[in-house]
């Protein structure tokens, strides 16, 4: 991956990783701060409680034996190792006894809890006795040389304390070192640094493995689409089979490509067919006019030629209209004009329309429909499609070996309404031929002798596509069954 930093940031994966990382880090920091302050408060409260207990004990000692006992107890306790601080000073602030060598100035001036942690120096354990003997000595900070050295050996600590004024104006301080909570804070800080570091590493790993993998897939998709745009319409996007979003995307794009290819193919075929089916009669038309103009003819001949010309152009117009209509229907003709259509009524109408024609051709046309079969559609289009099919059926049933008959039936099967037009003619025995029969301009060999544009069934098929239905050609026994399947309305 020889990507420069800005290029890396251009990928969605990297941007997302960075964003996630930032958000997580922010959350972690907030959480840790909240927890630290909460526990610090708790520790302080605990410390204060300890001090209170201590004060209570001292108060009891004082009650028992007054100041001397108190001083003795304080001295005793000062000698024990621990975080507790004791100090008794006179009214002027001179330290009389305790384990504190020096304090921040002003700490013992006010009674009650110290508002903020203060720094202090503590005696080494061995020095306490000497301190007691020299209580009347100068005790302010720069004390005896030994003490100072000793004190400097220890660091200045932080503590909180309760300052009390004894009845004889002496001052007593009971405190506790804050070393423990501070150690705790340091631990949290270390943990936080470590956590942030690990999250950063994790983000990078996620980007590297997940993001880059996604990036690669997207790159392969855009690579494939570039190839397809380059003209290779048969190309398809890669599908890994993982069934994930990328596969779904590729599959959808692939079906879109397939649809485009079909439309493209259809367009090409139609233009070829139009070229053939319109050029042929146009040429005939032109030749006829040319032939009439050259040489001498009787007026009646001209008349006949002109009538022929008109008949020929009428046929051309019909073909042209049919092509136009099929294209419009297949291109998703506006469905503004669909409403409830009763297929039974449509069947009765068309059967009634064709009945005299059938009778004249010696074909018995039966329409067995009872009740109403309502679909959403366009009566005009359905009528046209059905009349094309019935027209064909009548024409092709005449070569039947028995009495020619056409039967139109309607039935409701699961979710569909099937309108079937069955004849008992020769049918289309070949499966491939049957499949081809609905294609535009396809006129099977034996139908070439029959008049027609070769668009009747294609139009019917387009009408069925428009109605979200199907047109199926099934082998009859004998003959051919043309089935128009409409999706049934929801309320049925």
């Amino acid at each position, binding site marked *: 991956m020889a990507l420069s930093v800005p290029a890396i940031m251009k990928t969605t994966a990297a941007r997302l990783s960075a964003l996630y990382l930032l958000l997580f880090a922010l959350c972690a920091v907030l959480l840790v701060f909240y927890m630290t302050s909460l526990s610090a408060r708790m520790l302080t409260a605990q410390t204060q409680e300890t001090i209170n207990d201590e004060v209570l004990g001292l108060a009891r000692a004082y009650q028992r034996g007054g100041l001397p006992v108190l001083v003795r107890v304080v001295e005793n306790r000062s000698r024990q190792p621990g975080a507790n601080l004791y100090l008794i000073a006179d009214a002027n602030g001179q330290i009389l006894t305790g384990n504190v060598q020096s304090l921040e100035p002003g700490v013992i001036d006010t009674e009650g809890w110290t508002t903020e942690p203060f720094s202090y120096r503590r005696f080494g354990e061995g020095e306490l006795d000497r301190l007691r003997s020299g209580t009347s000595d100068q005790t302010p900070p720069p004390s005896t040389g030994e003490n100072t050295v000793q004190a400097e050996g220890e660091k200045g600590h932080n503590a909180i304390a309760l300052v009390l004024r004894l009845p004889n104006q002496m001052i007593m301080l009971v405190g506790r070192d804050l070393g423990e909570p501070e150690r705790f804070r340091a631990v949290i800080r270390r943990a936080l640094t470590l956590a942030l570091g690990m999250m950063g590493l994790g983000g990078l790993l996620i980007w590297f493995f997940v993001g880059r993998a996604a990036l690669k897939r997207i790159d392969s998709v855009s690579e494939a689409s570039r190839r397809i745009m380059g003209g290779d319409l048969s190309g398809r996007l890669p599908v890994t089979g993982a069934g994930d979003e990328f596969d779904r995307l590729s599959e959808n794009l692939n079906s879109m490509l397939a649809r485009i290819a079909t439309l493209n193919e259809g367009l090409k075929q139609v233009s070829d067919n139009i070229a053939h089916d319109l050029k042929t009669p146009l040429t005939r038309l032109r030749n006829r006019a040319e032939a009439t103009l050259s040489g001498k003819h009787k007026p009646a001949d001209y008349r006949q030629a002109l009538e022929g010309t008109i008949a020929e152009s009428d046929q051309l117009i019909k073909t042209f209209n049919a092509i136009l209509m099929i294209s419009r229907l297949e291109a998703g003709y506006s469905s503004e004009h669909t409403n409830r259509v009763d297929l039974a009524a449509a069947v009765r109408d068309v059967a009634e329309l064709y009945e*005299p024609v059938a009778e004249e051709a010696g074909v018995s046309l039966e329409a067995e429909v009872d009740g109403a079969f309502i679909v959403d559609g366009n009566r005009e289009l359905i009528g046209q499609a059905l*009349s094309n099919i019935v027209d064909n059926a*009548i024409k092709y049933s005449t070569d039947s070996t028995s009495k020619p008959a056409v039967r139109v039936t309607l039935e409701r099967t699961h979710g569909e309404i099937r309108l079937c037009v069955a004849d008992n003619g020769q049918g289309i025995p070949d499966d491939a031929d049957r499949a081809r029969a609905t294609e535009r301009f396809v006129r099977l060999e034996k139908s070439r002798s029959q008049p027609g544009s070769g668009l009747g069934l294609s139009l019917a098929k387009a009408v069925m596509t428009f109605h979200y239905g199907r047109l199926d050609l099934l082998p009859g026994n004998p003959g051919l069954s043309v089935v128009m399947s409409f999706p049934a309305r929801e309320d049925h």
Partner: protein
Amino acid sequence: MQMSATQPSSEIAYNGPMKILVIEDDREAADYLQKAFAEAGHTAHVAGDGETGFALADAGDYDVMVIDRMMPRRDGLSVIAGLRSRGNTTPVLILSALGEVDDRVTGLRAGGDDYLTKPYAFSELLARVEVLNRRASAKEAETVYRVGDLELDRLSHSVRRAAREITLQPREFRLLEYLMRHAGQVVTRTMLLENVWDYHFDPQTNVIDVHVSRLRGKIEKGFDKPILHTVRGAGYMLKGG
């Protein structure tokens, strides 16, 4: 289905000469229509665009107007809507290159009375214009139609010729009713399909011819005088006497 404009029109009886307004932007087509209407015995005025056409229609007293749908300056539907809003009820036939069901519906909704898709046969246009002629459409209200010795009662659904009862199927009755309403006028096959069957497509086989010949069998069999005539290249006409 085609009838040349040069064909002698004496064969076709019409309800007197009509005054027709043609609003059509294609000069050549308009001239052809003017000439063809004149040969059929009518007077046609031509307007080359929607605005001029609207002014002419508003000022003149025409029997029928033929209006092209797509024109410069003002389209046909807007002209019709404008005329209708000014109380002009002259029958209008819309000519259009748009032939889908929806287009027809919008055309008729805008106030048109009939709709013909280009390219069309002049015989078809002429027949439709003659049927639209407002002076001929008074028959709508009549309950009994009479043509020669043929009589159709629209209320009792009975048909008799020279006092002899003729039994017709419902559709045959409607077919005869339409032909009798427009007796003396040419009625084309597409007009019959539209008005009797309410379908606007072009059937592959001439189904209408078979229906008409059946009807003819019923109303002419046993009578020596033909009454339902075939007009070559155009359609049918019911004419007595």
